[in-house]
């Protein structure tokens, strides 16, 4: 059933592109950062679907690295750019 994976991946890519609008509009800085966070998760899902659809195990490794690093930029934002005491 390979149409399943490719269609699902396409839907997720559309979700990413739609989320780009929020980055451009976002009234606060956090909205943009949250959209980028969502892209990370969508990217993980796309990679997982493609790994099954294209039968390519290495994509699971790439999804693992995505998952590990997805939070890094958001944490940096929350701690440094937006929060944090004055230094």
């Amino acid at each position, binding site marked *: 059933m390979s149409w399943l994976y490719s269609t699902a991946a396409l839907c997720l890519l559309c979700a990413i592109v739609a989320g780009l609008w929020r980055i451009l509009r976002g009234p606060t800085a956090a909205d943009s950062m949250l959209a980028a966070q969502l892209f990370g998760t969508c990217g993980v899902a796309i990679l*997982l679907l493609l790994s099954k659809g294209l039968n390519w195990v290495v994509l699971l490794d790439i999804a693992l690295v995505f998952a590990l690093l997805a939070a890094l930029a958001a944490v940096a934002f929350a701690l440094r750019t937006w929060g944090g005491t004055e230094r």
Partner: protein
Amino acid sequence: MAFLHNLGTVCILIGVPFFVSGTVGLLRFPDIYTRLHALTKADNVGLGFVVLGLALQAEQWNTVARLLLIWLLVLIGSSASCHLVARAALRKKIQPWSRS
């Protein structure tokens, strides 16, 4: 085996709308706290169903273990970072949206 495969397909088909709804929530909800709420639904439930579906269709236990690990990592990372963002937003005194 075909039953598991079809069940996996159903799970994936359930999971993708959660992602789409997370994006819609990100675009349409009125303030940052509600958008955070929508975002975490996509992360937890959406990815969870997609991983469940793929795990049911996987051919080796190795793959199932990796899929579950990836889901766990996304859960940990995204929930921690969303918590930190919400905390920073509260300290910046951003008011939650109210119906008035």
